[in-house]
């Protein structure tokens, strides 16, 4: 009976996706997984052997597959040293490359209690993602869930799993995933770009040369936050003003805390609960930054909610954007809206700002490429402010973002999946419940996937015609499939509009004392040092 309820429930929400039979089968699958607890992703070596043996008895055609036992990889000790002693966390992207060169395109490693199979091959990545079921799982979200349980909060898209995730995802993707649905936000984003330009002018005027803006990421961070908030909250936060309103400033601090304590919060999840009384700080910081993030989105959602209620009571017509729509239709509870707004804002700021920083950095260091893209912009727009629809006619702007994000600086250098079924990858039998790491950084730098991989060449993404293909599983910076980035089109819009207008207004140049800025991993792939650039007026 319970199963039947679930079936109907999923069935209604998800008709578009599947036929009856499928849903039935998949729902059953989903339940089995949860019930048997096989999503548990930590295996002791003995368990692993055991599981593997058991599963291969069941699945006959895997008889020839190799055992995980025989998979190469660094030893547990050397891995611990690498990460904790030699600060491997900031070089995850480089270690990914080293290991894939040393151990091959599929290798195993162990991070404390966590056993991971890493995959650094385009076709194997494709194989894993194409085999996904209805509710893929990225990794262990226990610490996120624990915080939410503790505070009586809901999970959002990032932290939710299974049916709960699918329900929210079905609602949100219908609102913000189709490119044409998102293009309509351009009139909201353009004024933010205008403020960014103003801010650049103010900042550089404070410098002796009247041209340099120091640590450009700081500015792009504020732009990204302002941009995503205009869309999500239908509100301006004032991040690009001289005096940032107190509430927004507090939020920025909470975000910074979340980000700067990334390593500690990783430990917050990794440190067993019984150790918390002895090492309390990571968990406390983790909770307090979440408190800050939730508080901020709750204030904004509540404000809009009372506005909507007032209008409803008066029988007035309600007009609005995303949040209004969500509050009126109530396809999600208000708690779910808080959680999703919080998680989307968290996911949408650093990612977008780092990509913008790297793009501007690359443009400054490649003046010829910058000129080429500028000419395209001039030809198409002739100085006019771009609309959402114009982007289709600016293939080099799109190429610029792809070359930055997909290839040279994938903000998420790797992604994760917990296998929901037994799989054979690269000839190895991988039991259900194994944590996989998909090594996007390595595949995007692979000469086989991208000739002259080290070079910055946005034009490699131009197509001669519609049958001109690039098999680009080698670089999927937003992921692929039903669990891919929900904010992809929003991020793209923000980046296209900002970069286009920056090129229209400025020559972006390196500052005279500039040195190479290398990437380091801090959860995300970010600039290892401040990026200082000169913004010289075009006219």
């Amino acid at each position, binding site marked *: 009976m319970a199963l039947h309820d679930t079936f109907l429930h999923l*069935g*209604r929400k*998800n*008709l*578009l*996706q*599947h*036929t*009856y*039979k*499928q849903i039935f089968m998949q729902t059953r699958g989903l339940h089995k997984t949860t019930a048997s607890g096989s999503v548990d992703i930590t295996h002791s070596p003995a368990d692993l052997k055991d599981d593997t043996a058991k599963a291969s008895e069941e699945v006959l*055609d*895997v008889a*020839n*597959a*190799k055992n995980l036992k025989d998979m190469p990889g660094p030893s547990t000790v050397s891995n611990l040293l690498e990460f904790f002693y030699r600060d491997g966390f900031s070089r995850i992207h480089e270690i990914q490359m080293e290991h894939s060169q040393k151990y091959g395109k599929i290798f195993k490693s162990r991070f404390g209690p966590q056993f991971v199979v890493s995959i650094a091959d385009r076709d194997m990545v*494709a*194989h894993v993602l*194409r*085999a996904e079921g*209805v509710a893929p799982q990225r990794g262990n979200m226990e610490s996120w869930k624990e915080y939410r349980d503790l505070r009586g909060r809901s999970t959002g898209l990032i932290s939710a799993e299974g049916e709960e995730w699918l329900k929210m995802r*079905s609602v949100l*993707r*219908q*609102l913000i*995933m*189709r*490119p*044409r*649905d998102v*293009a*309509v936000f351009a*009139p909201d984003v353009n004024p933010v770009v205008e403020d960014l330009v103003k801010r650049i002018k103010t900042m550089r005027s404070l410098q002796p040369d009247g041209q340099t803006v120091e640590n450009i990421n700081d500015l792009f961070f504020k732009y990204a936050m302002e941009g995503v908030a205009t869309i999500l909250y239908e509100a301006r936060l004032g991040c690009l003003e001289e005096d940032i309103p107190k509430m927004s400033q507090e939020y920025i601090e909470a975000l910074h805390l979340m980000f700067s304590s990334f390593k500690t919060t990783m430990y917050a999840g990794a440190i067993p609960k019984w150790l918390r009384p002895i090492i309390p700080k990571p968990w406390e910081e983790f909770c307090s930054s979440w408190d800050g993030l939730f508080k901020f989105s709750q204030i904004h959602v509540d404000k809009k909610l009372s506005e909507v209620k007032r209008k*409803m009571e008066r*029988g007035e*017509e*309600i*007009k*609005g*954007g*995303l949040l209004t*729509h969500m509050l*009126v*239709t109530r*396809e999600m509870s208000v708690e779910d809206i808080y959680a999703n707004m919080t998680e989307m804002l968290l996911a949408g700021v650093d990612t977008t700002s780092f990509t913008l920083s790297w793009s501007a950095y690359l443009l400054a260091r490649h003046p010829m490429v910058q000129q080429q893209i500028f000419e395209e912009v001039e030809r198409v727009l002739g100085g006019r402010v771009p609309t959402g629809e114009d982007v*289709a006619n600016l*293939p080099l702007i*799109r190429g610029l973002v792809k070359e930055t994000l997909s290839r040279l600086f994938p903000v998420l250098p790797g992604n994760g999946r917990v296998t929901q079924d037994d799989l*054979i990858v690269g*000839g190895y039998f991988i039991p259900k419940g194994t944590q996989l790491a998909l090594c996007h950084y390595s595949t995007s730098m692979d000469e086989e996937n991208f000739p002259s991989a080290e070079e910055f060449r946005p034009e490699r993404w131009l197509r001669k015609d519609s*049958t001109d*293909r690039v*098999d*680009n599983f080698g670089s*999927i910076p937003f992921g*692929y*499939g*039903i669990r*891919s980035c929900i904010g*992809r089109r929003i991020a793209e819009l923000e980046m296209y509009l900002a970069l286009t207008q920056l090129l229209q207004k400025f020559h972006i140049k390196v500052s005279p004392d500039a040195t190479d800025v290398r990437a380091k991993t801090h959860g995300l792939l970010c600039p290892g040092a401040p990026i200082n650039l000169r913004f010289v007026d075009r006219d």
Partner: protein
Amino acid sequence: MSSSLVRVLLHRAAVARVTLAPHQTLRKTSALSRCGSVLHRQIRGINTFTLPLRTEEKVTINFVNRDGKKISVTALTGNSILDVVVDQNLDFDGFGACEGTLACSTCHVILEEDVYKKLGSISDEEMDMLDLAYGLTDTSRLGCQVCLRKDLEGMLLRVPETVADARVDSQQESST
């Protein structure tokens, strides 16, 4: 479940950013075709309704499923191929996983060359997702992006095999 209910649900999902008066129901939009739904939306009070209401017409289209079996269905213009697959309960395993939001390429269909040409230009976003489709051909399209028109009467669409169908082969390959 009746297809009219499905339709209402679909519309519910597809209509974002509409203007809602308290007494209004979302059902009102069901008279509109689903392709190009964005054009029917009112954004921030600005009416972007630019397409004249077309009358829907019937077209017959033919699918060839993964077993090579031909399935003919009658559908209304203005619907996408994905809409048709859903409405008619066509049992193509895993088809349209992202509900037409250009995130998955599981709605991959292979067209005949003349139909492919007739359909005209393809958006960059669709091409990017097509690049990730399994068993890509020169006349491949994403079913959620192809909108039915009267002049597509009698079109033939092949539903290519998925990675799941191919899994047995690749397993054999990889284990040898």
